[in-house]
């Protein structure tokens, strides 16, 4: 278990060494810290996705919930609400949307991918219907979070690391974490041992919605505008990172440390492709292949045991 989390860590070191041959910037801590602000939002999604996957489910709707909340937050600002009110409302809305996913999946015994495929279309569709082709600007006071530093670290990175620690404690050090793992490895057995299976699912998807809302606010602050077509395909990246970090798609296994390493690994790979002038379309191909390879490798490792 613990050993598994180190694999993406080792891969991360290797990739930094390889990437530094492409460009010496990869050995420059400042450059890497700046780059991390681009990936912190997806990182938040990946943290929650890890729990969702460990519980034996998947959440395809995170990117759409994120963009819907980002657009709603911009609209709230337009209506003249203050920053604390908007943050509060956004987090509430994200959590409710996620919990609704979880509620229907738990109570109607629906496969999570179907349910979230539907809400993926609905949330993005709602954002599109609300915004149309236009974009809404955010107030100056709210933007530029990614530019400001604390103790030399950019804010988004701090938020990501803080969430990683909190969710890591939740998963690895609390009864709730045991429940999540139990539901994912054998739902029936968990039910018979008195685990509130339905409530676990609702909370896990609620957390996913909460992280999506947090990511939405960080994205709003970084771009300074909200549009319905931002963050397209970000769920693919979040799933890839969680799986790369060792979350087993069948459920029951995974670590937050692994996901954290995997996020930075993913960041180095993406940045290296950018430095090597690989076009975004081809980067997409590579990420698709990476996802499949990661799952394949995980399965082979499991069989080899």
């Amino acid at each position, binding site marked *: 278990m613990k050993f598994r989390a180190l694999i993406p860590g080792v891969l991360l070191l290797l990739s930094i060494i390889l990437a530094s041959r492409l460009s010496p910037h990869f050995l420059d801590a400042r450059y890497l810290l700046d780059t991390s602000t681009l990936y912190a939002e997806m990182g938040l999604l990946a943290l929650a996705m890890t729990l969702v996957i460990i519980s034996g489910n*998947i959440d395809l709707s995170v990117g759409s919930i994120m963009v819907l909340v980002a657009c709603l937050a911009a609209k709230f600002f337009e209506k003249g609400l203050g920053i604390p009110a908007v943050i509060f409302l956004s987090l509430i809305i994200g959590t409710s949307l996620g919990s609704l996913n979880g509620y*229907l999946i738990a109570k*109607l*015994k*629906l*496969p999570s*991918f*179907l*349910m979230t*495929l*539907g*809400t*993926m*279309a*609905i*949330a*993005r*569709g*709602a954002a*599109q*219907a609300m*915004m*149309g*082709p236009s974009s809404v600007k955010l107030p100056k006071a709210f933007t530029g979070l990614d530019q400001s530093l604390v103790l030399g670290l950019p804010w988004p990175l701090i938020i990501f690391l803080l969430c990683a620690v909190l969710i890591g404690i939740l998963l690895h050090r609390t009864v709730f974490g045991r429940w999540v793992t139990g539901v994912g490895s054998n739902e029936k057995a968990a039910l018979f041992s008195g685990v509130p299976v339905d409530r676990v699912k609702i909370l896990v998807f609620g957390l996913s919605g909460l992280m999506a809302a947090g990511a939405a606010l960080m994205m709003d602050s970084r771009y300074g505008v909200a549009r*319905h077509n931002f963050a397209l*395909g970000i769920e*693919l990246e979040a*799933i890839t990172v969680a*799986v790369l970090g060792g979350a087993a*798609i*069948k459920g029951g296994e995974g670590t937050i440390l692994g996901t954290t390493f995997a996020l930075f690994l993913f960041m180095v790979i993406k940045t290296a492709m950018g430095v090597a002038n690989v*076009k975004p*379309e*081809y*980067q*997409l*191909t*590579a*990420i*698709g*292949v990476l*996802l*499949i390879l990661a*799952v*394949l490798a995980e*399965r082979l490792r499991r069989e080899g045991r």
Partner: protein
Amino acid sequence: MRRNLAALFFIFTLFAVVGLYQPRFLAPSSLNSILLWMPIITVLALGQLLVVVSGGIDISIGSILGCSGIVVGLIVKEHPTLPVPVALGLGLLVGLVLGMVNAAIITWGKISPLIVTIGTLASFRGLCFLLSKGQQIDGSMIPDSLTSLARNGLTLGEITLSWLLILSLVGAGGFALAMFYYVGAKSLVAFGSNPSAAHLRGISGNAVTFWVYALCGAMAGLGGVMYAAKFGFVNPSSAGQGLELTVIAAVAIGGAKLTGGFGNVTGTLLGCFLLSSINVALSVMGVDANWQMLAYGAVILVAVLVDGLARREK
């Protein structure tokens, strides 16, 4: 049967409500637009139906459609005199090859089809750009013989049944017959409803899985040629993008059990008709394209919820 009635009810309600609001929706011209939307959705839905009945899902069909449209577009650009059946066959072949990639990874890699096809959805889309070098296949490159498949057909009064529609309906007929008479289809249903029981009855799960995804890819490939014929151009980024949602919605509302083991061609056809009608209804009502995705999502959600509620009652 009851699910087919439900689909009919949805169609009837849609026509009644939209027709009251905007009588133009009941005119033959809008029926013609609906019938022109149907063929592409239908061929893709037939392939997806097999996958869904087997208990799986294929998210990558939109990207396969794009690849096939690009490849066939590039070939007819060089050889404008290529006979239409050959073009259709080529599209089918491209789709089959890509479908086999999915099939091989799912069958022998034993990875969940959702994850595999999410991965290939991205990878095949990149392949579209790689094959086309980022260039759109323009209308001038697609010969008239191909686009006339969408323009011409059998005319019944004011209604035109385009050759594309007829082709897709013939395909649907073939699928329906196969579902009734072909032994392989029986093992498909058996496998979808209970894989381990099917295994004990001597049905090879691997063979079923492999050919279901290969065929689904082939149908998406056919859809690529139809796309080129209908729209007269193929764009590497937009061709077939997001179509998987429409198609899954059509299959779901058509009464196929989304967790496998049950589905029928008639229902799927009704589902395709409903989704095509929704598409045209939105434009007739002057609702902008931004609402389409919301509508598709709502249809999927309704179908999924009905499925879930129906199962809970049992």
